[in-house]
Each structure stands twice: as C-alpha cells, then as structure tokens.
C-alpha cells in the first residue's frame, strides 16, 4: 500500500488491537497505525469533530472495523462513511467475530471492501491477520487521498 497511507483500527478489545498490530508489522506493513476504542471515536476523527485527533486533509486511509463496539457500533460507522461523498472512498475491512451469512450480506450491501471473521483460535487469528498484512504490504495497493471535510 502507498507508504503515506494510514491504517485506522476501530476495535474495543485491546488484546485484539495488539494482535492485529503485531501481525501487520510481522508482514512488513510499515504504514502508520491509529487506533480507536469505539465507533464514536472513529466517527469524531473522520468527521473532524474531535479537537485532538482530526483526520488530515490529503491523507489516504484504510479502516479495519470491528462490529460490536460500545457507544456507536461498526454498522453505524460503515453506514456513515459510505453515505459521505468523500469518506466513502476509504476502503473498510470488517474484522469481526460475527459469522452469520445475513451479516456478511448486509455489510457488503453497505459497501465494505471485505468481511473477515476473526477465528476463535489464537494461532488462526494470527495467520489470518498475517495474510491480510501480506496483502496490505504490497507496493501496488493504492488507496486514494481523502480531501475536504466530512459533513455531519
């Protein structure tokens, strides 16, 4: 992925965040990673409502999004992103324990890039993230710049 792109992780489980970060690094993903503990934090960042952490203009982002999170869940986050003319360009990869076909269907309908189920087995989870990382580390993967400000 273009080296200047930033990977956003929205995930309430700190253990999962660490596992994802560690295994992305192991796959030589060198992009900056920012983490958010719930849906509200990631929306505040993307829609630039937080004074401390706002998304920069003219930066490329890719979002790894958990579904079950406090305050605002992943479904609402995805909906808001994909309804916004500019933010919709951000590739969103769902990373979740929810493995129902109806959910897979719903999230693709809403415009996620990929839907990935976190394996319950720790080793398999690591391998899955490593595969994701191997892909994201490719030079050829291009993520577009997000300009302007999301409209609330």
């Amino acid at each position, binding site marked *: 992925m273009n080296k200047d792109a930033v990977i956003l992780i929205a995930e309430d489980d700190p253990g999962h965040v660490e596992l994802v970060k560690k295994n992305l690094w192991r796959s030589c993903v060198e992009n900056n990673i920012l983490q958010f503990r719930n849906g509200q934090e990631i929306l505040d960042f993307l829609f630039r409502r937080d004074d401390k952490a706002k998304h920069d203009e003219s930066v490329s982002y890719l979002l790894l999004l958990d579904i079950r999170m406090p305050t605002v869940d992943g479904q609402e986050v995805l909906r808001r992103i994909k309804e916004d*003319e500019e933010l*919709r*360009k*951000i*590739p969103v990869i769902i990373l979740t324990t929810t*493995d129902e*076909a109806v959910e*897979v*269907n719903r999230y*693709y*309908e809403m*415009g996620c*890039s*990929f*839907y*990935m*189920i976190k394996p319950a087995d720790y080793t398999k989870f690591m*391998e*899955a993230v490593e*595969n*994701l990382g*191997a*892909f994201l*580390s*490719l*030079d*050829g*993967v*291009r*993520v*577009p*710049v997000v300009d302007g400000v999301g409209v609330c």
Partner: protein
Amino acid sequence: MNKEGVILIAEDDEGHFELIKRSLQRAGVCNEILRFADGQETLDFLFVRGDGPKREHDKEYLLLLDIRMPKIDGMEVLEKVKHDPELRKIPVVMLTTTDDPRTIDRCHKLGCSVYIVKPVEYQDFAEAVRKVGLLLSVVEVPQINGMPKK
C-alpha cells in the same frame, strides 16, 4: 471465500490471465476461475444475457477487473455492477497497469474493494497476485441472489 465461490477474471491479455490464475492457485486458492476477455462479456455474464456463460443464482462471486479492455472498459463494468442493488455486493478488485490518481479516486468512489497496480516485473506480478490469493483465503464473500434489474 468458500470453495464453491467463483472467481471472475476480466482480463483481455491472455498472458496476464494465465499468470493470475497460476499465482492464485499457488496461494492455495482452488475456487473455480472464469475468464472474460472484455467488459461486454463480463457484463453479459453478470446481468444474465447474451449467448455465453451466465451467472447462477445463490452463488458467491468475486471479480478481478482490468481497466483497459476492448468494447467496454473496466471502469464502466465497475459502475454498472455497483449501481445494481444485488450485484453491488460482489467484491471487485481492480488489477490494472493504470496508476493515475484520478482513476484510483474514481474507482474507490464507485465502490471497488481495493485497487492494485500490476507490477511491471513478471516475478513481482506473480507475487502480488499470490498475496491477493492469501487475502481471499481469509475473507467471506456474499451470495448473489435473484435477477439483476434490466
């Protein structure tokens, strides 16, 4: 992606197609692979029209899409697929030599899942596709039901 899912490759260059197919298989992807030589063939398949092969109901599909192709190009295919209420669920991976920021921007606005620029070197190209295969082995893909709107 389930073993029953079908990988569609829209690619006019036969050499590129063979390389993509082999590299996916090298990553352990054993899904059925179908090739379309241009955008028209791809759309005919997905929208179930014409004399060629046709999409089946209740199957999973994923599309690897080249941009520069005869008749109908990949951008138009992407636009048609993503404007259809059912077909829009199909993950579309752009795999192209075009490295133009406006094209990258447009494809993401239209709803491609990811955009990959084909490496020039043969080995790098094969390795890139192998890693696409690794990704496909850990993601879920939805079933496409029903008939598309005419």
